[in-house]
């Protein structure tokens, strides 16, 4: 019935907001692709100057710039545009917290394991189901993915993690750390920066540290000699031993693969050594929190690879690890994560 007084009992605002929430990202990703924020890092400019520098159509560029103001990435004054602190910090090339690759891979479902390239095709993906067996290993990685991991880590998560660990007494006493599946090496570097006695080994599949620019990072933070790179297959091969700490971050395994890796980690640790696992965790009912349920869906495979804290505790206990401490951190691009410290019980 059409009348003038049939306002719905609840507000449609939230649903409308969900429907239009793709728009900001479309505008952001296009602007990053055309280096608009990098050009503006030099100082404020008019629409015509920007269009000229980045080689775009000036009429649509001006509309785009206004849209970037409306979503808080640019400011406009006296006809000129400038970066907001948010854009200047995260969207300018060569700046330490630049998020180019994170933004580039964000449209993609399932971090390269899927046949479906764009989240806009989520309906098609749901019909088809998972693409089949995932080859855990180097096939998962490409350059953008590896660099996105680095960008996701550096913008707060690395620092928060190192801060948490530095408060544990055993961390200060540790001499040798294994950063397993560490791609870019930033965790190994941050930990050795916090603990002057520590030496760290970054271990990943052959070719992956190069994709993640690990060598460059070791040079950049002057950790040559204290952080070394080792390449190998940590699922099927040997990972070495004599470690006080084995650290893994955002490595998502399940079933036999998980068992094989955890058992290797156990063997690699000294008595009273710590296995530190930092992953996104989900509530037991699997419907909280939002970012994690999205991440769970994003893992386009048949089995669960996202666990709750208590599920992790049970999984690790079977391998002789006792859960010693838990710290939640929110500085994570993929959703709230937990730093779980497991102690290797002395036999």
């Amino acid at each position, binding site marked *: 019935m059409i009348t003038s007084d049939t306002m719905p009992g609840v507000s449609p605002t*939230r*649903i409308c907001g969900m429907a*239009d929430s793709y728009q*900001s990202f*479309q505008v952001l990703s*296009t602007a990053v692709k055309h280096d608009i924020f990098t050009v503006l890092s030099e100082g404020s400019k008019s629409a015509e100057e920007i269009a000229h520098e980045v080689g775009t159509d000036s*009429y649509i560029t001006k509309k785009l710039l*206004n849209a970037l103001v409306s979503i808080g990435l640019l400011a*406009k004054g006296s006809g000129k545009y400038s970066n907001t602190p948010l854009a200047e910090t995260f969207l300018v090339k060569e700046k330490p917290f630049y998020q180019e690759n994170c933004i580039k891979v964000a449209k993609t479902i399932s971090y390269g394991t899927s046949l479906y390239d764009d989240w806009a095709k989520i309906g098609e993906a749901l019909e088809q189901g998972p693409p089949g067996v995932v080859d855990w290993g180097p096939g998962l990685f490409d350059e953008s993915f590896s660099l996105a991991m680095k960008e996701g880590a550096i913008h707060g998560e690395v620092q928060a993690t190192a801060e948490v660990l530095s408060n544990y007494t055993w961390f200060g006493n540790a001499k040798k750390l294994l950063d397993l599946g560490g791609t870019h090496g930033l965790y190994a570097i941050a930990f050795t920066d916090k603990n002057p006695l520590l030496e760290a080994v970054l271990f990943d599949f052959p070719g992956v540290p190069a994709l993640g620019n690990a060598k460059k990072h070791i040079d950049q933070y002057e950790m040559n000699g204290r952080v070394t790179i080792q390449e190998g297959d940590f699922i099927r091969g040997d990972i070495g031993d004599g470690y006080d700490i084995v650290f893994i971050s955002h490595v998502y395994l399940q079933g036999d693969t998980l068992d094989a890796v955890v058992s290797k980690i156990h063997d690699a640790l000294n008595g009273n050594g710590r296995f530190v696992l930092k992953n996104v965790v989900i509530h037991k009912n699997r419907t909280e929190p939002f970012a994690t349920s999205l991440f769970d869906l994003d893992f386009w495979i048949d089995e669960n690879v996202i666990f709750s804290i208590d599920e992790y505790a049970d999984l690790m206990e079977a391998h002789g690890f006792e859960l010693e401490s838990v710290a939640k951190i929110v500085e994570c691009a993929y959703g709230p994560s937990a730093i779980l410290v497991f102690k290797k019980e002395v036999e």
Partner: protein
Amino acid sequence: MSSINEPPEISPEPIDEMINGYKVSHILNTAVEKGVFTRLSESRNKSAEEVAKEIGTDPRSTEKFLNVLVTLGLLARSNGSYDNTMEAETFLVEGRPHYMGNYVRMTVGSNMLLSFLDMVLESGASLQDHMDDYTFDEVNILGCAEGALCHELPIIFETLKDIPEFTGAKRILDLGGAHGAYSMAFARKDSVSEVTLFDRPHVIEFAKKFIARYGMEDQIQLVAGDATVDDIGNGYDLVFVSHVFYRKEGMESVLRKIYDSLDDGGALILNHWVVDESRTGPRISVLFDLYISMVNRDQQCYTVNEYAGLLREAGFSNIRIFDIQTPSSPSMIVMGKKEALNS
């Protein structure tokens, strides 16, 4: 070299939110297109497996998908089965008076336009040259109708309830009225004797069907034509135009035509999304301005003062502005009166 252990001074959270926003829109749209909420309304409390079977999707992925809808507050889960929340039941179940599924599909459908932003920026091309009449398929017309019914029509009628030109009008023209939701609301007013809905021929066909749903086909006169060239009639007390004037060319002549079609003392009421004077807000208007410009450079979003200026130039006086902006629908009403010449 700064230490690796120095975090950024500001949080990247707004950027992460934009990234997630892209996914949220497509998840909502997919749930609507697959009829998840409509199925759950037919028989409550279904398992993920049952839902998957009904909508033809993979059961494991569907469970994860439904869990995301739970975290978005659109579904509730208990004992492994899913049910609509009040919001979903009100707005996302087909056939309900406030169904907004087509509005969602229309809104997310514009993602397709923004996907061409790279191309348009580089080439300066107009998308209209590359696509058939995108704007007016059935999803879009129904989407506009749902947008009107859920958040504009009731607000407009409430806002103008003490305006004599609005409440006293007998003969009303709903120009570019598309779905006819406003025409029907006018026709239901006791004071109104005649409502004419004028729109392009293929749009009028949609309007016929939509109006027939409410059994009001006898109360509204449907006229097919192009307002820029065809006669729009005369003797009106009120001409109402909602979300039509987003063009640059030809505005003066159409407004003059409207002025001439009104009786002395009659009024024109415009309802449109508007941009601020700086043209950098509100977000919904600015983004709308961007993508309609990509489609055709003759299209744009106006400021409220520009509309007021155009009305004055066309001869209207006693210009009044009513702010009815909400975050999801940044509309303003601009109203002008045709004064009797010798009053």
